[in-house]
């Protein structure tokens, strides 16, 4: 009793499974088995289509998060496109989790933006602004300016303004002023632009 050293010999950890076995584990009835398999498939290109096929169907948020952690590690067009379809999901947990994953994929997300900005569903465009808020690429600002300038839905414009503001400078003042003129009846948008302008005046 008391402090003891790890017992020797230690109970051996099971040997690592190969990719095929891990992919089969993605369909295990035990969510913890699925979660572990999804994580252990990190960096395995053969697993990407399997994970993409399951991420929208997975019912356990913990398993879905693990799948998204592994998928986001592949910053490729196929993964970004496969995930972006879920921005339109009716399930809030899925669409927000996917937006978070996409926000960590600066190489592949810009290629999807022309389509996402043209999505007929304004909720998809709101989610796109959420992605751009955290996407670590210099391009994000110009995409957000485009949304603020061109989008016809006030909730998309306010989401894009929120995403732009942390990185906004004096050069964005006219962009914000123009948005305020376009939506004179949106109280939140009016408030937000009025509150932001004084802080931007002296920035570069």
């Amino acid at each position, binding site marked *: *009793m008391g*402090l003891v050293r790890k017992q020797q010999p230690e109970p051996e950890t099971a040997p690592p499974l190969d990719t095929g076995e891990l992919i089969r584990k993605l369909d295990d009835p035990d969510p913890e088995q699925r*979660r572990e398999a999804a994580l*252990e498939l990190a960096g395995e290109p053969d697993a990407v289509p399997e994970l993409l096929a399951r991420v929208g169907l997975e019912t356990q948020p913990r398993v879905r998060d693990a799948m998204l952690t592994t998928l986001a590690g592949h910053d490729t067009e196929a993964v970004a496109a496969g995930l972006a379809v879920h921005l339109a999901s009716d399930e809030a947990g899925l669409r927000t989790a996917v937006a978070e994953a996409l926000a*960590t994929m600066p190489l592949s997300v810009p290629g999807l933006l022309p389509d996402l900005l043209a999505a007929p569903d304004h909720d998809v465009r709101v989610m796109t602004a959420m992605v751009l808020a955290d996407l670590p690429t210099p391009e994000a600002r110009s995409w957000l300016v485009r949304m603020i300038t061109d989008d016809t839905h006030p909730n998309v414009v306010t989401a894009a303004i929120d995403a732009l503001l*942390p990185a906004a*400078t004096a050069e964005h003042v006219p962009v914000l002023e123009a948005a305020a003129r376009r939506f004179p009846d949106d109280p939140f948008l009016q408030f937000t632009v009025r509150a932001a302008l004084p802080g931007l005046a*002296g*920035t*570069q």
Partner: protein
Amino acid sequence: MAGATSAGAGLSDADFDRFTEYFYKRTGIHFTHAKRYFVDKRVETCIRSSPYDTFASWFAALRMDKPDMLQELINELTVNETYFLREDYQFDAMLNTVLPKALAARGGVNRIAGPIKILSLPCSTGEEPYSIALRLLEEWDQIDHVDVEIHGADIDSDVLAKAAHASYGARSLARVPKAWVNKYFTPVGSGRYQVDEGIRSAVTLHKVNVCDTAAMRAFRDFDVIFCRNVLIYFDELSSRRAAENLYGALRPGGHLFLGHSESMSRISPIFTPTRLPEGIVYQRPTGAK
């Protein structure tokens, strides 16, 4: 310069707000205007040591996820010092609440199968795992009735070598009661004291990267994990993966302590936050869900 953006002039109000919002989002650490002078000075230091000459250009680069810049910034803005019994209130929480709960969940003293397992990750030069050992030996009333395994893990083999040697100077030991030093340490010259063999040999040290899922598979069924002041350094995906790996290392119902200014709410929702008298601790849920 207009807008007070050059190093030396302090940040403008708007820059300060943008900066603290960003830092909060990135690390979960919030600086109010009361810390204005401190933040201004430390940010200026970072700008000066960077290739950028204005706040705006430095901040723009930082926001593009430059890991080195963020690390330097966090080092400047946080106390990154390791010593015995640091953030001791968390060890209080472990002794008062977490270990009794763990013991009860595993059937109590008489029926528990296998040891109580505690992991310190990153363990750095060993102050944390040895602090845990000292407090258990001195203050846990069940220590003579239960087996306890303490593990320390770090990615850096240099600090692990120091942890294995376990000799410390006065500064590191400042908070250890004199009686404990006399009882568990041996003077080794130059004002340094070495942790006794009995404790050193009871603490198992490992080299591991917490973001490496395959390597972290070796860590299983821990009752308690201390993972303090490290996740703030990781980018979004790495901190998520680290959290997932720590989840896998805990037994269901096991407890995770983060540093006192850290929160899992910026990293991952997989743990259940639990309020203890000493603060918030994170639990791996017990249910199948």
